[in-house]
């Protein structure tokens, strides 16, 4: 038997060890990537910074009233958050609060602001400021919306009330409130010469709060609750819900509208078992959304949880089969978590990377010029050339 040269095997070993080391060192610094799921925070409870924010928002002490006049020195020792005091949410109603300022400074918010800026060629905010008198990216703190109105809080001293007053009738209401009704107390002259009574009412409270309501009565009710003239029943939008970058409550009927039309039995079960859905969204990193379906803890709700989980699973399989990878990825991160009290949470997560991919359309074409200098006098940005 012919023997190999004595150096063949050691040489081969040396070459292979070197190759192995090269292969394993190759790309080593970026070998480990962060797991997507680890980064998503689902807002299941308030964090320390949420409590601090709640505390900082308790700025208003409503006085007692006597014959339509505030009693001096009667301010309540318990301070409240004026926005939450003002939002009218009866049982079964819906209201959502957006922490606009926090959202704007979140990674997802930055993406959206950048997108808006690119789409408007750097002048969108300027145009809005020219029209509204305030910079929506700096001066707006929160926006609350419900079925028949909305409230905005923040640094609203520069809101163009003078301009509004030229087309609205203005009247004071309460200690710090003012109401603006279109035309002559809501009577608006139409272009054809006819008239129309419009209920929509714009209101302000100090320079902190601007609101719009469908009727004058609703607008007055907002100011009554705010200034302590009406000790309203406990709102379903309470302070302990005020965490995350978006929070609120949706009535079961409103949510049922979003359930698949081809699953009427699911809608029926949902309406039987659910009272409302409490929403929380966290956007401090990736976007995490929690929808807590609350009800009396009936069997119907348990069945809804199972059906919803199954619907998500089926939708994910379908998305995968149809090659819709992003939707499949989103649905993969969705969870239905029953809790001990018979309610259940629906948890959704949107990775920031996915948002970035979705926002790719914001990137202007290479030949698009940059910011174009000052706005036209009317503040309207001309449409981009075709």
């Amino acid at each position, binding site marked *: 038997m012919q023997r190999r040269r004595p150096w063949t095997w050691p040489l081969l070993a040396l070459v292979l060890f070197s190759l192995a080391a090269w292969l394993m060192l*190759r790309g080593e610094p970026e070998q480990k*990537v962060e797991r997507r799921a680890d980064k998503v925070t689902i807002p299941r409870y308030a964090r320390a910074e949420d409590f601090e924010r709640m505390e900082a928002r308790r700025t208003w002490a409503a006085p007692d009233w006597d014959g339509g006049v505030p009693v001096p020195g009667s301010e309540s020792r318990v301070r409240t958050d004026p926005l939450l005091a003002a939002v009218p949410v009866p049982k079964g109603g819906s209201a959502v609060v957006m922490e606009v300022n926090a959202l704007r400074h979140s990674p997802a918010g930055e993406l959206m602001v950048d997108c808006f800026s690119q789409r408007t060629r750097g002048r969108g905010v300027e145009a809005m400021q020219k029209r509204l008198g305030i910079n929506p990216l700096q001066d707006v703190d929160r926006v609350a919306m419900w079925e028949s109105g909305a409230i905005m809080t923040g640094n609203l001293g520069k809101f163009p009330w003078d301009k509004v007053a030229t087309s609205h009738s203005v009247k004071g209401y309460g200690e710090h409130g003012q109401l603006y009704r279109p035309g002559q107390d809501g009577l608006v002259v139409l272009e054809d010469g006819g008239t129309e009574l419009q209920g929509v009412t714009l209101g302000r409270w100090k320079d902190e709060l601007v609101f719009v309501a469908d009727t004058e009565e609703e607008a007055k009710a907002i100011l009554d609750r705010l200034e302590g003239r009406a000790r309203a029943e406990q709102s379903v939008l309470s302070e302990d819900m005020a965490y995350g970058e978006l929070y609120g409550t949706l009535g079961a009927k409103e949510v049922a509208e979003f359930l698949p039309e081809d699953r009427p039995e699911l809608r029926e079960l949902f309406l039987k078992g659910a009272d409302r859905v409490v929403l929380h969204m966290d956007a401090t990193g990736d976007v995490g959304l929690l929808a807590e379906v609350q009800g009396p803890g009936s069997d119907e709700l348990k069945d809804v949880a199972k059906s919803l989980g199954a619907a998500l699973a089926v939708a994910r399989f379908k998305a995968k089969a149809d090659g819709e990878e992003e939707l499949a990825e989103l649905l993969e991160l969705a969870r239905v978590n029953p809790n001990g009290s018979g309610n259940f949470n629906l948890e959704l997560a949107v990775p920031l990377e996915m948002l970035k991919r979705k926002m790719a359309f914001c990137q202007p074409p290479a030949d698009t010029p940059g910011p174009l200098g000052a706005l036209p006098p009317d503040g309207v940005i001309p449409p981009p050339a075709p």
Partner: protein
Amino acid sequence: MTVFKVAADLLREAASRKWFLLLGVVLTLGLVTLGLSLRLEVVDGALAATRLFGKSMGHGIMSVDVALRPLYQAVSYALFYGGMLFGILGCADFAPTMLSPGRIEQLLSLPVRRWELLVGTFLGVLALSLSAALYGAGGVVVLLGVKTGSWTWRPVVAAMLSMLGFSAVYACMLTTALFLRSASVSAVAGGMVFICGVWAGFRLDIAPAMDAGLPRELFLAVTSVMPRLSTLAIAAADFAGSAPITVKSFPSVVAGVATWALAALCVGIWRFESRDF
């Protein structure tokens, strides 16, 4: 073909050992226990409830394959690390036994080349490791597939990756036995490669915790050439669970570990061919 005959001979020898009988019994008992104690409620492809030994496992309602992901990952880790530790202990004396006086002379008198003898032994041990890993992973896949209707082949491939990891360890054990014919020394060598291989996967995380200077540089130098066993284990677990593989250079690591095993085997062959018996 001679190589495979040697490997088959080793498998026959392994079958007569109590260690491997015990391994088979333990794996079978584990699978049977899991099969009898695990109750899964599946609704339209979503895992709605899980009971283990009658106790409810509080997890959300989600797609079966997503819900089973951590389980497949855990099985992959168990097979990788558990299988490797068992392999180090259970296979440590194959090479010393083959090299024992009287036996080696008899083997060398047969029409078989030395490298064939060594490679056959190596492949035999790998076949042993692979069959145990496939039995464990395949058993879990079949069990959960029957219970949930969700079938996946990925844990089986992950089991093959655990065999690949063990190949680097066993190549070193085999080579060590050729320098010093001792089962315990062979096991210690395997254990050293195992530990260094785990460290090597986390070397860039560990190094900053060490004092700057010679110790850190030495650590980085030694671990730079060691097989990245922990990296391979993470990648295998991710793969088993159909999760996105968090190791970016996965193919490179797989190729690197395989090449490392071949390199260690080459040293063994060189030693075997140059040694007089």
